[in-house]
């Protein structure tokens, strides 16, 4: 029994310690994000570039995926609602499922696939090339210059793209409601407005910001763990991305628990 416990215990303790370190590091980064001293002309330039790379460049792909995936899903949801005779709950189902759950989840998956991996590789390459030494040599704080703009851009991008996803899906929902239920535009909009809860919006906003924070913080952290060997780059990206997906699942589960308490 003891060897089994030891075999199970070592990775468990290791993972708990790693999570603890990440959370402690998150605390340091949060204090930097809210510190005015972290923002100067250089970090603002990086912030604008990062928002462009994360939230603007992805738009054609994101809009296409949102329309195709969102329309298919909303079509299925509407068909089920019609079959079960739950038309009166349409607004609650759309706001509770699509806006607060589905939109942040799809958005964070797309951004994690595209931007988190890029950030992880970028920082690992900078480490291998000794470019981080350059920054410290010129007394440039890596947290201020590299971390803060990327994390803020991650948070802003997830929030904005989640809203965009919601708008697009609710837009296709409007078409489905007209064609499947023969519902008027006013009735559809009223159903949505009546089902909107302030607490849901706040939880969605917090969830999006938490997603955005961790899907940029974790790759940054794992990118920094690269050694000076080129072969450490794929290892850093792989480890970082695995942890990003674990973080996404944990945040999703915690937000669900929070909603239903």
């Amino acid at each position: 029994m003891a060897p089994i416990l030891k075999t199970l215990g070592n990775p468990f303790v290791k993972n708990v310690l790693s999570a603890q370190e990440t959370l402690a590091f998150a605390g340091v980064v949060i204090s930097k994000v809210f510190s005015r001293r972290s923002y100067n002309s250089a970090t603002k330039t990086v912030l604008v570039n990062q928002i462009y790379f994360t939230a603007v460049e992805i738009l054609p792909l994101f809009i296409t995926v949102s329309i195709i995936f969102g329309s298919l899903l909303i079509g299925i949801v509407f068909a089920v609602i019609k079959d079960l005779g739950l038309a009166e709950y349409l607004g609650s189902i759309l706001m509770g499922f699509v806006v607060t759950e589905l939109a942040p989840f799809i958005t964070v998956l797309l951004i994690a696939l595209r931007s988190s991996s890029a950030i992880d590789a970028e920082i690992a390459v900078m480490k291998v090339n000794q470019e981080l030494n350059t920054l410290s040599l010129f007394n440039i704080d890596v947290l201020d210059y590299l971390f803060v703009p990327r994390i803020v851009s991650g948070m802003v991008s997830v929030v904005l793209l989640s809203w965009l996803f919601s708008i697009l899906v609710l837009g296709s929902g409007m078409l489905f409601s007209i064609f499947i239920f023969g519902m008027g535009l006013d009735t559809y909009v009223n159903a949505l407005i009546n089902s909107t809860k302030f607490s849901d919006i706040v939880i969605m906003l917090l969830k999006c910001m938490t997603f955005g924070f961790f899907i940029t913080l974790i790759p940054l952290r794992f990118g920094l763990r690269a050694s000076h060997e080129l072969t450490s780059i794929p290892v850093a990206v792989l480890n970082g991305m695995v942890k990003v997906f674990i973080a996404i699942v944990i945040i999703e589960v915690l937000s669900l628990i929070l909603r239903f308490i």
Partner: protein
Amino acid sequence: MVSVQAPLISNLDAWLNVALIRQYHENLPRDQARREVLASLDRFGLGAVADRRISSLDDQERFCIMLLRAAMVKRSVLVIDRPFQIMPDLQDVRYVGRSLKWIDDLYEECHIFDYVWMKDQYGALHGEEH
């Protein structure tokens, strides 16, 4: 510091590598920083490389960008570490001397460090101001 140990930032354009120092430490607005960097690059006749990525620059262009970046520090004391390692194809040190003259108002002192066995390569600097 101008050294292979302090490489240029590869995900920034040439001008942003130079502007970074003053943008970060003096909060110099981006447009003003760009104007000043372009004026400095013109001293080397390198205005055309301002918007290029580091990977597309040759060794001498990289050296000039590194030199300008180091000179952006207030009251800068330039330390050039093994210039022949940064520019392996360089025949002698005259190019370094010329480059330093073009920006001599931007720094207070300059020190070049290299191995003793490279001494002959520095003959061209003897008797010059630098």
